[in-house]
């Protein structure tokens, strides 16, 4: 059991840092390597570590199954929604240049900020779906139980 204690304490210490690193990778994707996908995998890994150390039931209390199942489509919806928004604004699908209206003159767009916002939102969509899917798959496999 001593090993178990060490494991639990170490895991408790590590998980916040893993989550922080995930967020860093997500938000810093514009400047360094990384982005929504990598961040999603890292955050999912943190939860999986938690599940392995503290048991799956504890993990599903923190991150419930229904939530991850809804995250799977939600991310795609965010991504696709950005595209629809740019279409409504008169551009092509996923044309971030037209996401934001510039103040002056009326009817023009702030292309550079639009690009930033577009990429930011899209990466969040990726993050949500990837985290959700990885956890869904993990829960599905562990929830299956060994056949008798």
């Amino acid at each position, binding site marked *: 059991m001593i090993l178990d204690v060490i494991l639990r304490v170490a895991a408790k210490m590590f998980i916040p840092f893993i989550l922080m690193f995930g967020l860093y990778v997500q938000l810093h994707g514009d400047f360094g390597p990384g982005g929504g996908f990598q961040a999603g995998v890292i955050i999912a890994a943190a939860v999986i570590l938690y599940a392995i150390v503290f048991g799956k039931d504890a993990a599903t209390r923190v991150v419930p199954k229904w939530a991850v199942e809804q995250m799977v489509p939600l991310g795609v919806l965010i991504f696709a929604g950005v595209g629809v928004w740019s279409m409504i604004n*008169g551009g092509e*699908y996923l044309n971030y240049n037209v996401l934001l209206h510039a103040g002056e003159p009326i009817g023009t767009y702030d292309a550079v900020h639009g690009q930033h916002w577009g990429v930011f939102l899209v990466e969040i969509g990726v993050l949500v779906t990837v985290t959700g899917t990885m956890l869904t798959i993990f829960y599905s496999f562990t929830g299956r139980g060994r056949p008798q």
Partner: protein
Amino acid sequence: MAAGPGFDFAANLPALQVMVPLIGSVVCAVIRQRHLCAAITILCSAVMPVIAFMILWQVQASGTISYAMGGWAPPIGIEYRIDTINAFLLVLVSLMGAVVALYAPRSVGNEIRPEKQGWYYSMYLMCLAGLLGMAITGDAFNVFVFMEISSLAMYTLIALGSERRALVAAFQYLIIGTIGASFYVIGAGLLFLVTGSLNLWDIAQRLPEVENLRSVVAGLAFIVVGFGLKLAMFPMHLWLPNAYAFAPTVATAFIASTATKVAIYLLLRFAFSVFGVDYLTEHAPGGEVFLVLAALAMLVCSVSAIFQINIKRMLAYSSVAQVGYMLAGIAIATDIGLTGSISHMFNHAIVKACLFLAVGCIFFSTGVTRIENMAGIGRTMPLTMAAFVIAGLGLIGVPGTAGFVSKWYLVQAAADVGNWLIIAVIMVSSVLAVIYLGRVVEIAWFREPKSAVVRKPPVEMMAMTWVLALATIWFGVQTDLSAGVPTIAAAELLAGWAE
């Protein structure tokens, strides 16, 4: 398109064509309530043909449509490039999607657990979105991405069949499908390495500069093998019969009428638009091999069909044989040959979907899938079997049905190049079709009823089966859409893209 404010419906049709089912699928996954999901599926699928016909009309009115995804002009961004042939394919796929979606609710209700139905519809729409995406895109890598979307959805749809063999069939398809996709990626990668571009049009412009490189030939070979696996080109067809036989009815009918067709379209696109006829005749002397494989498919698979005990498997083998017809037309590579192939894609989709839907009705009412157990079904379910027979006549190619039109083109094309052997093979294969379909008719009508009809098939299932049966006759007489458009498409294909 100028980035002016306001939503421009007509200009955004290409994006809508793919995004409506995609978003519909995602919404289904959020909602999960099965009746709502069925409603969403029907709504999205019913809008698809409308959009597809509008695109076809736009193409006919004002030529090729180029739609720059994300507003980045090609080849920098991803382009949707639509000319006659893929507009035609969009019409084909979306029509089939709509008919099968209208047929679906009670068939799905019968075969899939209630809790799973919401997600099942989601996968159906995703499969539709993936196939439409493959047909519409003008970017080599985007083809791969959408191929994987449709394939993953398809593996799932197949695996949900009620028998345990469906799982094995889905797994084998997954392996073969992934190998096929990887071969395609290798081929596209070689082209990318020598041209520096992923845009198909751009590649076509740059290929003449590097056409003497061996990498280009190898690229073509890998692409052909990749799609060959996907479209069940003989001898790479072994995954198909099991996949079709054990999938749920709705999945079989939809996949059988669309998936192989889209793969054939992509083969056409690469061979004729990207590489061009001149390149093929000069550097890739494979036409004869193709023709031999096509002939073998027609003969071997028609004979296999005769010996099947499961009716869905029988129809699946017949599909591989029909793919042989289409490949024969492509291998002949004349104007009429290509017209025949493209037209046969359309006609075969209608006919085969009708047959599978009729089989679905029978399964719904009696639970029978084995041919010998269908004894007397013609007397207990006369309407369903009548539709089956009409579609069967279409498959054989009796004059006055859709199948005749396209087979006539193919025979004519073969006669033009003086290839009498291929004509003989087409004839023999049609006779074999008479045999395997005749066997079903004989059992269904001339034997005493054996299986009781538990319940009548619902109205919408019968209606959709009959819509397709009537379409079989309609397109046998009225050929503006089923042969007129393919004629234009064939001419465009033969002209190629390279300037």
